[in-house]
């Protein structure tokens, strides 16, 4: 068996390189197919490694609850709301919760002024618990404290982007700035988190939740977000189920009604990205399968031509003692080698392409090919070689020696 493969490989290589250009053109379909697969895989792999990394900065093991108004309700003017009562309910009855905090975002981007500088930013009212839930730690100064909320202090913790935009000193603690006409004292500067898929996580200002409520006019029940982190032993799904039941009951929802709130986990967002990347990979995979199919047919076509061209040679080999399996192996191995060679060229080309694209587009993560993609690409091109080589090889092997020798 080994002897057969060795000898067949020897003669297959001779014949592949005897028709160098033709061999290359024959395998071009495979080259293009594998190159595009590898280019896309190397880009998406780099991308998802990057996204995974970004997610760990988002605070794992946390849940966000938000009001949710279905579109059909919204056009009738109804608005679902999540209220401080809900927060209180969850604080009292929720299970598996380590810390919990309300978040009251300003309804629109708000102007912040410091001296002559001003910027628009997202301002959120929250409590000391936000620090643990969202893993938002200060690099200087302090975070919002319980007393800040009790006395509705006008203090703010800001992100690096705001500090920079306003031209605040590198330690902005104890500086004062203006938020929609009210003076606030900066008490802390957050650690930088960087971009997350296009969103600047450092463009943020946090003020006490109670202060925010009084700022927006102290409506009795504002629509808030609730963010909570789970205790170590808690199971995300269990907590979600229990909170859902709790809130549905509090909101008087009947069995047929949909939820008027959503509970999100960072994993969900991650799943969404993974799904998008998976879909892209799948679509490209589909296109590539077609191109490999076409490549395979190209190989089959040329192999059939080659069998016809070499009919007399096959006759000679049979006359001097070649058995069917000798001829079969020779042509099959030639097809597989041709295809594998295409796969290898495609691999190099695809990786080059991926690397070129990722370095050409700024902020794009570096390309990386996982080992499985290499194995898959080569395995698949080998498989294409076998699949489309078998017919020509069988045709060659089944030639009658005397007919083959007589062939002109």
């Amino acid at each position: 068996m080994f002897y057969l493969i060795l000898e067949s490989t020897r003669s297959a290589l001779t014949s592949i390189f005897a028709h160098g250009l033709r061999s290359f053109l024959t395998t071009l379909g495979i080259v293009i197919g594998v190159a595009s697969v590898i280019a896309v895989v190397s880009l998406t792999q780099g991308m998802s490694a990057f996204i995974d990394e970004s997610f760990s900065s988002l605070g794992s093991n946390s849940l966000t609850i938000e009001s949710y108004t279905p579109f059909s309700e919204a056009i009738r003017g109804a608005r679902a709301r999540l209220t401080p009562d809900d927060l209180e309910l969850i604080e009292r009855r929720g299970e598996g919760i380590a810390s919990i905090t309300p978040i009251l975002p300003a309804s629109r981007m708000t102007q912040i002024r410091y001296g002559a500088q001003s910027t628009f930013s997202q301002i959120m009212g929250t409590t000391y618990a936000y620090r643990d839930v969202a893993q938002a730690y200060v690099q200087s100064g302090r975070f919002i404290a319980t007393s800040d909320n009790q006395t509705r202090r006008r203090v703010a913790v800001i992100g690096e982007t705001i500090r920079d935009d306003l031209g605040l000193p590198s330690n902005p603690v104890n500086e004062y700035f203006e938020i929609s006409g009210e003076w606030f004292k900066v008490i802390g500067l957050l650690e930088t988190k960087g971009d997350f898929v296009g969103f600047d996580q450092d463009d943020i200002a946090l003020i006490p939740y109670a202060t925010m409520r009084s700022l927006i006019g102290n409506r009795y029940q504002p629509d808030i977000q609730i963010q909570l982190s789970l205790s170590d032993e808690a199971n995300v799904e269990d907590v979600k189920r229990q909170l859902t039941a709790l809130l549905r009951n509090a909101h008087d929802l009947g069995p047929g009604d949909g939820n008027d709130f959503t509970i999100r986990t960072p994993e969900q967002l991650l799943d969404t990205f993974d799904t998008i990347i998976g879909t892209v990979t799948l679509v490209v995979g589909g296109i590539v399968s077609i191109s490999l199919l076409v490549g395979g047919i190209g190989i089959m076509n040329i192999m059939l031509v080659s069998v016809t061209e070499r009919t007399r040679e096959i006759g000679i080999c049979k006359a001097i003692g070649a058995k069917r399996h000798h001829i079969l192996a020779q042509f099959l191995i030639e097809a597989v080698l041709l295809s594998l060679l295409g796969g290898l060229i495609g691999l190099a080309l695809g990786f080059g392409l991926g690397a070129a694209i990722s370095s050409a587009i700024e902020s794009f993560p570096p390309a990386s090919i996982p080992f499985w993609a290499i194995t898959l690409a080569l395995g698949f091109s080998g498989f294409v070689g076998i699949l489309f080589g078998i017919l020509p090889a069988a045709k060659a092997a089944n030639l009658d020696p005397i007919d083959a020798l007589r062939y002109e």
Partner: protein
Amino acid sequence: MALIRLTGINRHYQMGSQLVRALDGIDVEIERNEYVAFVGSSGSGKSTFLNILGCLDRPTSGQYFLNGSHVEAMDHNELAEIRNREIGFIFQSFNLLPRANALGNVMQPLVYRRTGYRQRREMATEALRRVGLGDRMGHLPNELSGGQRQRVAIARALVTRPSIVLADEPTGNLDSHTSTEIMQLFDELHGEGQTLILVTHERDIARHCQRVIELQDGRIFRDRSMNAAEMH
């Protein structure tokens, strides 16, 4: 027991409504180390007969014993094995592998019997020396003259040490001088004990052989041994 024994060999071709009897009841025995020529006019069935002897073709009916085994009952693979071990075939048009050099061509039959590269090379070199081409081993067929190509083909036939060497019009594509050289080589091989069977339509060539069998319309018309005076 004879090396080759054929009884009642027929080879018929159905051409439309017409039945062509290329061979029509051939009975013949050939002993070890015989030097036999089959002669006859074109279309008399010489090539058809030699192809059956060489196990390239099968008779429509009849029996063929080679070295004691029943050839007509064998399957494809067994026939390939016989062609490889027992038979060395030489063609009018040389039939060398065009992309292999002289050495590669002569080594090729040994590939099918799993001989290692080193030994293959040794045996092929020896065979090429035997036919006087020790200095042309790296040449491709199209870099060799007709006579040299036929010598490569002879070396390829000999390298497996076959029981019989078959040659179909081996000098048909060669000039008379080269033909004589090739025939001298055959004479020498016969002298060394090789069994040789060749097909020719030239009297001069047949004269080298000890026994001349004449075919006519697929039948044996005459089978006679030459005495020393008739030879050469």
